[in-house]
């Protein structure tokens, strides 16, 4: 089903960008391979605003192309990676960041995994310890009182 949805999304951005051209175009690529590599990494972390959950690096939309060119423009102008991201977030909002910041309540998101893991680990450890110390139920399945009574009967 996910793929059906994805296709609907594919359809939607086809409508948005009349001239569909697949992802990074040769004319966008920077001459400096180091800068280009940084541009690629940055654009993998930026969301295409008119698509559904696609980075601008993967997207065909013309808006994604504009953003790719903008990233490269800023890099050529000498911005650091952070400065490029700040520049884009300032214009398009934090919605463009595929990797959410840790600011505000977002720390909850980032802390969920480690915190849950810790809690689960403690609970699991407590359970395992409990099981290792528990009395094995006797083979007959009788309670202590019943067992005592049985022993008495057998003695007689």
């Amino acid at each position, binding site marked *: *089903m*996910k*793929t*059906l*949805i*994805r*296709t*609907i*999304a*594919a*359809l*939607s951005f*086809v409508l948005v960008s009349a001239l*569909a*051209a*697949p*992802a*990074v*175009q*040769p004319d966008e*690529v920077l001459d400096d391979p180091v800068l280009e590599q940084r541009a690629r990494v940055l654009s*993998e*972390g930026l*969301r295409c605003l008119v698509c*559904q*959950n*696609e*980075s601008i690096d*993967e997207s065909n939309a013309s808006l994604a192309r504009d953003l790719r060119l903008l990233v490269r423009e800023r890099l050529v102008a000498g911005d650091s990676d952070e400065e490029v991201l700040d520049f884009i977030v300032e214009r398009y*909002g*934090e*919605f*463009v*960041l*595929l*990797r*959410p*910041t840790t600011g*505000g*309540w*977002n720390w909850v*998101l*980032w802390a*969920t*995994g480690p915190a*849950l*893991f810790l809690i*689960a*680990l403690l609970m*699991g450890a407590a*359970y*395992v*310890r409990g*099981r*290792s110390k*528990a*009395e*094995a*139920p006797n083979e007959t399945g009788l309670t202590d009182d019943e067992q005592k009574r049985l022993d008495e009967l057998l003695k007689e």
Partner: protein
Amino acid sequence: MRGPIVRGMVTELGHFALILAALIAVIQTIVPLIGAHKRWPGWMAVAEPAATTQFLFVAFSFAALTYAFVVSDFSLRLVYLNSHSAKPMLYKISGTWGNHEGSMLLWVLILALFGAMAAWFGGNLPPTLRARVLAVQASVSVAFYGFILFTSNPFLRMQVPPFDGQDLNPLLQDPGLAFHPPFLYLGYVGLSICFSFAVAALIEGRVDAAWGRWVRPWTLAAWVFLTIGIALGSWWAYYELGWGGFWFWDPVENASFMPWLFAAALLHSAIVVEKREALKSWTILLAILAFGFSLIGTFIVRSGLLTSVHAFANDPERGVFILMILVFFTGGALTLFAARAQTMEAKGVFGVVSRESALVANNILLAVSSFVVFVGTMWPLVAEMFFDRKLSVGPPFFNMAFTPFMIALGLLLPIGSMLSWKRAKAGRVVRSLVPAFMLAVALAGLVWAMQTGRSLMGPVGVFLGAWLVSGAVTDLLSRTGQSRDLRRLFRLPRADWGKAVAHSGLGITMLGIAGLLAWEQEDIRVAKVGEPYNVGQFELELQDVKRVEGPNYFSTMGEVSVRVDGQEVAHLFPEKRNYPVAQMPTTEAAIDYRFWRDVYVVIGDPQGQDAWVVRTYIKPLANWIWAGCILMALGGLLSLSDRRFRVAAGARKTAPKAGVPAE
């Protein structure tokens, strides 16, 4: 004019059968439940024939809808919107479930199928438990019949039937995608039986080893189907979407991945219940959560809540209905769990170092990682609703937050799977795994030395893959005893083979993912016809570009020769198609599949005279990702065919049979 009349009859009968099935499901919910409570055998006995008839009616209903698609009965609104008389037969049939209404009908069909199978093969269940399982299963059906009949009825007619339909999206006309939804649904809905068993056991107030044994085959079957369904979807994305991405951490993908992780946890914890009568209440909780997350997945996909306005069920009425189903069943089951869980006392006693503890660790890692996926998927919604922030949670988050748990799982697995039950000697297991460990380290070191980049991902993936596979082999060899008599391997229970194969599959998938991500090479350029260029060790040459006309599309087809040291290794024909009716371009990547790597070529737009944009990707170990998935599914099937299930539990022939009717 007899044709249209017959067609109309079939459609109306299908509609009628669906309503009847819904009514039978209501009876199947109420009567056996009262019967089990009052110990009235006659009332309990209603469950079994009711489950069978309910299935037959809904199967007829589904067949009627399929028939309408096959004969292109455009008096049905659904057929008009999703089909076309000139479409190939395969896609007419798959069009039945390639839309919201039809896919929900498939959902209840599978729900009823699993209910009927529980009735057919549940002969050795205690009568009260069987009656309750079937009643709970039917209650889920009732909710979904209501959903279909009141919000998503596939049998609505059109007053004036149009001459032809609007066709199915060309991207969906693909064999891989035709069978992706049925498998996914068999998995999702298969978990409903585990849920029914869990709720029935809670009502019954009794969970014992036998319960674990009854539940496990169903979980295994559901997990196998989910594995196949997810793998099919991922493979489709890889070859169809044009850049070879195979997993996007998209909400709808996560929706299928969360139940998969829970099902994996459940099928391991049910072993502990079966063998050691421990982890009972946790296993019950997992069974509830696994199906609960299937419902959440359905809600995510069907409501379109997280996938923007473009999702096809953007009707809020439907979303609210499914949300109510979700809240009622998950909430109800969890309430029941809270009230009854204490009564399930664990019996088995085991040491800190034991198979039981290892499986607890397995469950912690799988459950926590699934919750991480859940929180990441829902966070944008939470942030928007409560903090008024519009933000995205994309692959970078999931890669960072999820992957460590899988690495930990891979590291622990070979050791944990060899520990003996009750009390294990860790030293002995670790000693026997030294060769496997050394092999894995050596391979990872070799790869580290050979690779050019500084990425750790590749070597870590190689280590995990080799460690898991050689660990599984070590485990099998250890079962041959002191004599190392290899003939004994063939006398091992199939469950042991299943375990080894499935665990190796996990390793191979991990290796494939790491290898592909770490060592992929990409080349984007304007290629001139007849001018060779190099990508990695390959020399490519765009030899020709032709205009080709397909049955319902025009295509720009490139002819690319791939050479190594002057020797041609592949001759590829990447295409860029345009479907004029649907006004839609698609890229058809040409892929040279090989054991060690794929060469993936995509042709783009023309750039002046005799020059085209060509993208080339060298994708090492790509096939290993899906080969690993196939091995995992195969391992599950092997376990499922184990003699113990056939002899003891009532789930004979669960998996292979389940697949047939829905296909």
